[in-house]
């Protein structure tokens, strides 16, 4: 196993910070795991690899952002009832409390033979196992107009929380009353099935208070609402009747950014004051570059007992980037569950043991239909040895009977707890 000093790599990319926090001496003699991506999947995996190995595995987390900004609850920042600070958590607790080494930067390549992760900007991280949790990247080639200079700064997706969240909020604040907010939703599968519909509710809620003559147009490439359909439709009818209009089977194929016009496969062009285009997406770039994206070149097939890639040995993939099991949503909650399952499996594998043959975990997904009222969908997933995948447990799971403020309380409790579980 190669040992390299990667402190120098920290100096190579300017403002990068290498925060080393070792819990005990002799730490570097343990096996090394590199985690690419400090999102819900990667950060959780990093923390649990340390915790569950009694702090004996050397874990390095590669992440470009200075702090973690959560996509869940970000729609409320867009709607105006929460601030960006409310959804931001620093990374330093992972280093301080758990001794995760954090490298601020991006992985540019994985050399699976030499077992090193190459960093953009120079430097290499050797690994025994690498966990890739890169989230999604957008298939801009499917919207030619979005590749023109400046297009992506003007027409926002807001599908990676952070500056775009704030920028989209500013666009809505600047929009005169009576304007139209048009949101284009791609064909499933995409990150966070209910996310767009929750956003429609948040913008409509904002409009109902501040710009009552304005409209929210939901242009959905899918045949119907992809998650909690009846509950969202009821919210739109009961609460935002003259504001929200839902149009299914509207597949956006291009954007004229100069005129803020959406172009569809079969429908007439649509011009709007504020466009929110959520593009088709696939596994994060590093997955494609490393030959991990085996399903339609978009998603990474994995062994659900260990999350090891079916294509590349010693490489594990988590979260949205994974080719989902049946009925397994691409959600933050799910990525966190992947992180823990994978951490346990990697620990087992590194000691020559078999991974847990029966992983069981759940998804609980809350959507805000106003600033306070919430609906949820829940599911329990367990491994099925015959089908060799995760299946939903018959008889379990379900949705809310109706939206309620009570569920809104639980939703915020969920947020507090998952942020702590992932990052603290």
């Amino acid at each position, binding site marked *: 196993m190669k040992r390299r000093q990667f402190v120098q790599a920290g100096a190579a990319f300017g403002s990068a910070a290498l925060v080393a926090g070792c819990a005990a001496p002799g730490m570097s003699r343990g096996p090394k795991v590199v985690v690419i991506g400090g999102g819900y999947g990667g950060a959780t995996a990093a923390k649990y690899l340390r915790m569950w190995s*009694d702090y004996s595995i050397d874990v390095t987390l590669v992440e470009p952002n200075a702090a973690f900004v959560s996509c869940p609850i970000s729609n409320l920042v867009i709607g105006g009832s929460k601030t960006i600070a409310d959804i931001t958590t620093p990374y330093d607790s992972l280093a301080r409390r758990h001794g995760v080494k954090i490298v601020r930067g991006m992985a540019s390549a994985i050399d699976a033979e030499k077992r090193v992760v190459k960093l953009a900007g120079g430097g290499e991280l050797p690994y025994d196992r690498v966990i890739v949790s890169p989230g999604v990247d957008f298939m801009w080639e499917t919207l030619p107009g979005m590749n023109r200079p400046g297009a992506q700064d003007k027409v926002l997706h807001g599908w990676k929380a952070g500056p775009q969240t704030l920028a989209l909020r500013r666009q809505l604040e600047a929009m005169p009353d009576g304007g139209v907010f048009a949101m284009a939703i791609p064909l499933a599968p995409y990150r966070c099935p209910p996310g767009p519909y929750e956003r429609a509710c948040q913008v409509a809620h904002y409009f109902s208070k501040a710009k009552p003559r304005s409209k929210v147009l939901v242009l959905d490439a899918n045949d119907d609402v992809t998650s909690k359909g009846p509950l969202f439709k009821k919210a739109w009818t009961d609460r935002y009747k003259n504001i929200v209009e839902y149009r299914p089977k509207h597949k956006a194929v291009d954007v004229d950014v100069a005129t803020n016009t959406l172009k569809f496969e079969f429908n007439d062009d649509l011009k709007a004051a504020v466009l929110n285009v959520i593009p088709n997406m696939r596994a994060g770039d590093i997955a494609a570059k490393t030959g991990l994206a085996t399903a339609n070149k978009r998603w990474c097939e994995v062994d659900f007992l260990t999350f090891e890639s079916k294509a590349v040995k010693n490489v594990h993939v988590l979260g949205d980037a994974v080719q989902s099991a049946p009925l397994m949503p691409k959600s933050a909650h799910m990525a966190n569950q992947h992180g823990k399952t994978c951490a346990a499996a990697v620990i087992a594998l590194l*000691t020559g043991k078999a991974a847990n043959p029966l992983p069981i975990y759940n998804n609980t997904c809350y959507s805000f239909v106003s600033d306070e009222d919430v609906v949820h969908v829940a599911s329990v997933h367990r491994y099925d040895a015959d089908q060799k995948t995760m299946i939903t447990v018959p008889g379990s799971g379900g949705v809310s009977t109706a939206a*309620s403020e009570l569920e809104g309380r639980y939703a915020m409790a969920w947020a507090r*707890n998952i942020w702590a579980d992932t990052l603290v």
Partner: protein
Amino acid sequence: MHRFRLTAACLAIALPAAGSLAQAPDALQVRSWAGACANCHGTNGNALAGNEPLAGMKREDIVQKMLDFKNGRKPATVMHQLSKGYTDEQIAAIAGYFAAQKKGTP
């Protein structure tokens, strides 16, 4: 020197058919199952405000509550849906794990 160790347990379990377990779950498996609850109930069951902390709760109390959720005796917003994803034995094992956790900041 830190020895890389695992709390030992028999991991040589035959792959279970259709989700049923041939023998009692081992400690690491239960730890993983319990880990799935942390998203709402906090790491090791030390929940932040708004959800019930599970760390250090009496095993029988957790089991009773989960069974009450599962059979509809205790109305809930989501726990009745989640509890039905587990067998009674799995619930008992997970409850035992949380009972053994230390109460404190997560």
